[in-house]
């Protein structure tokens, strides 16, 4: 055809032609449309998982870049780059490549720092997301499996963070590696075997950096990506939970369609998250390994702390009294209790929680409507108490820095922490419980003016809804008392108030 005729005929766009090409071969039009029309409930707290996801994307991107420069080798060499204080100093190739990345590769330091900040924010975002899921009861049937996947992602994230900062073979992470070695060593019967196989012998061994490298860039990221896909697929398949509100029931999802608004917002959040991480990467120095120096097994620095997500473990090691179990010539060394038993209990309870709660509340119904924390005083109190417990452990992890900062005796600080580990969670739990009841009863009180609807709620009467004054932006008002719904099993759901 001539150009003029084409113009008149309005040729389909390039995008349309590409789409046709693919669809002719795969036939995805229907699925694609359904996907674009999927509804996602929109509450700000449902975006926390995305913050974790986008941090992980930053980890993948910056991590791939770093992989081109980092040399996971424990062979001895000397540094000859631009950082004067280490020039000519003996170190491993791994440490040297990290120093070179920081000083001799343009933009290398920003990449390294962005990667590290993304890691600490990744785990923080997962914890906040987990807390949201916990306190709103989103882990209940049918989402127990997804909870398990999520807790595994948290575990893998923490693990990869540890292997990641240990790769650099600096004095600080090497100290942490020795502690990890001793913890694994304390496992009964097989501890000495596991450490010998993992490290290729006694500490430090000739191979650990290379092996951590394989775990850090290949095995664990592959697992994380696979589990992430599963995690998101389950959310899509089961549909996201939603808070109670007008028109929201157990058998529907009310919110925004993915296309175009939700997708654009989600992309916006991606850029905002990465922007925050880039700002941190350039403005806040993290892990200055050139100050810590290369790892020497006979040296150590005061004020040695691991990254925050291991800090609770470090605190447990410090707070633990000098107990060990010895019998028949065998022993359970002290690090076992804080280093193996405590994390085992922590994650064991995390994994088991949906099933524990279902058994305790005898509630095995499907739930797609979320609780507000105040609706479940007991769960909320237990969650707050647990968070308080780990917060105290974090403080314990910094016992020496706290002591010097505030002019205290580190011995007294440890004793205070040992006591606080019992007192603070109990108090925090009681306070949270009380707060839940207060907030819940305040919601249930009749308002002073009987003509007004209850505070914070829309009336469910459709006639009055039209006349209601418009609310400004903010969290969607929730109707109270919650409308009684009927679950799949045909029974009314368990009483929303815990105990």
């Amino acid at each position, binding site marked *: 055809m001539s150009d003029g005729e084409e113009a008149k005929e309005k040729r389909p766009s390039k995008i349309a032609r590409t789409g046709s090409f693919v669809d002719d071969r795969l036939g995805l039009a229907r699925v694609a449309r359904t996907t674009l029309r999927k509804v996602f409930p929109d509450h700000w707290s449902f975006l926390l998982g995305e913050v974790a996801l986008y941090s992980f994307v930053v980890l993948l991107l910056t991590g791939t870049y770093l992989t081109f420069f980092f040399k996971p080798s424990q062979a001895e060499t000397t540094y000859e780059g631009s950082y004067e204080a280490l020039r000519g100093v003996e170190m491993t190739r791994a440490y040297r490549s990290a120093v070179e990345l920081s000083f001799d590769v343009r*933009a290398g330091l920003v990449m390294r720092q962005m990667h590290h900040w993304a890691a600490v924010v990744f785990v923080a975002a997962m914890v906040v997301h987990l807390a949201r899921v916990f306190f709103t009861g989103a882990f209940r049937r049918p989402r127990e499996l997804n909870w398990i996947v999520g807790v595994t992602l948290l575990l893998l994230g923490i693990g990869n963070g540890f292997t990641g900062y240990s790769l650099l073979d600096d004095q600080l992470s090497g100290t942490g590696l020795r502690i990890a070695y001793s913890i694994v060593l304390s496992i009964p019967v097989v501890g000495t075997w596991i450490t010998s196989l993992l490290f290729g012998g006694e500490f430090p061994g000739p191979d650990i950096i290379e092996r951590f490298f394989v775990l850090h860039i290949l095995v664990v990221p592959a697992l994380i990506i696979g589990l992430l896909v599963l995690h998101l697929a389950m959310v899509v398949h089961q549909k996201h939970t939603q808070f109670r509100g007008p028109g929201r029931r157990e058998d529907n999802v009310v919110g925004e369609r993915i296309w175009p608004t939700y997708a654009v917002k989600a992309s916006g959040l991606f850029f905002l998250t990465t922007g925050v991480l880039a700002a941190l990467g350039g403005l806040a120095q993290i892990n200055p390994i050139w100050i810590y120096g290369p790892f020497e097994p006979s040296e150590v620095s005061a004020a040695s702390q691991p990254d925050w997500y291991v800090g609770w473990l470090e605190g447990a090691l410090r707070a633990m009294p000098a107990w060990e179990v010895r019998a028949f010539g065998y022993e359970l060394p002290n690090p076992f209790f804080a280093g193996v038993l405590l994390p085992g209990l922590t994650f064991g309870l995390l994994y088991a929680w949906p099933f524990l709660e279902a058994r305790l509340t005898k509630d095995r119904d499907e739930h797609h409507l979320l609780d507000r924390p105040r609706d479940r005083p007991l769960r909320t109190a237990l969650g707050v108490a647990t968070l308080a417990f780990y917060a105290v452990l974090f403080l314990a992890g910094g016992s020496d820095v706290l002591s010097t900062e505030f002019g205290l005796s580190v011995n007294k600080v440890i004793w205070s922490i040992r006591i606080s580990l019992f007192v603070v969670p109990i108090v925090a739990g009681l306070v949270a419980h009380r707060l839940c009841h207060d907030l819940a009863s305040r919601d249930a009180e009749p308002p002073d003016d009987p003509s007004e609807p209850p505070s914070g709620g829309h009336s469910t009467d459709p006639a009055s809804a039209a006349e209601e004054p418009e609310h400004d932006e903010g969290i969607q008002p929730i109707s109270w008392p919650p409308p009684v719904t009927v679950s799949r099993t045909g029974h009314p759901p368990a009483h929303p108030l815990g105990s």
Partner: protein
Amino acid sequence: MTPEPGRHARPSSRQAYLAIVAALSLSICAGLGLAVVYATGGQAQLEGVLLSVSLLGIGVGLVIWAQRFLPDDEAEEARKPLGSAPEDVAAFTAELERGEEAIGSRRLLVGLIMGGLGALGLALVFPIRSLGPRPGRGLFTTGMAPGRRLVTAEKEPVRPEDIPIDGVLTVWPEGHEDEADSSTLLIRVEDESLFTEPARLEWTVGPVVAYSKLCTHTGCPVGLYQAEEHLLLCPCHQSTFEVLAGARPVFGPATRALPQLPLGVDDEGFLVATGDFEGPVSAGFWDRDR
């Protein structure tokens, strides 16, 4: 859209539009700025800030765009029951069982297949064994041996009189300076009469005593020597050891004293080990007492 009344005055759509334009323009400028900074040598703070601005600009632009100019209609979707209908489950189970029967009817073959896969699975585990040596006696021994001189990081031997009072020195067995489990602390106190049980007096050389440098809690080097109080403090978890009393733990999570090293002096007056440490050094393990 017309502006809506409310407690807070919201920007008009024109303002929002300008805000998006500003954000995206800023982003473009920052991106170009980043290229310039990089080309002219780079500077970490500028790189970070410019990258951040270019990303945040796009993010802000997208969010305002979505909030102000894209449809925000509420939509509803029905939740389909998640479990399958009973007839589907029955059909699937029947299908599965039909196949299972076909496969499983030859019992011996099934058993042998299982055996084969099992044996293969077991065999695949064996390469893991090649990852490292068997633990053996390595955790029970160090590089210390009778008559071996103790040398500093500069590989120089030490005479006891060279250590000042209140002095501490890190040493290794000569020829084994690279062995991580052999690092040793030499400490000189004011007078040998200060030592008490359970320190072994026969293992000191006058006022000089030697202990393993590795903490018996998780193996950190016990690098802090508090000379006035004769305490060794481990910076990792604050285990504290009394130097005068055999380095027994007095605070913190460590449960065992730092193993003492028997000291002697050779013909030329240099300090030597007269044997290995009194027990396995560093952190504990299952069969440490055997």
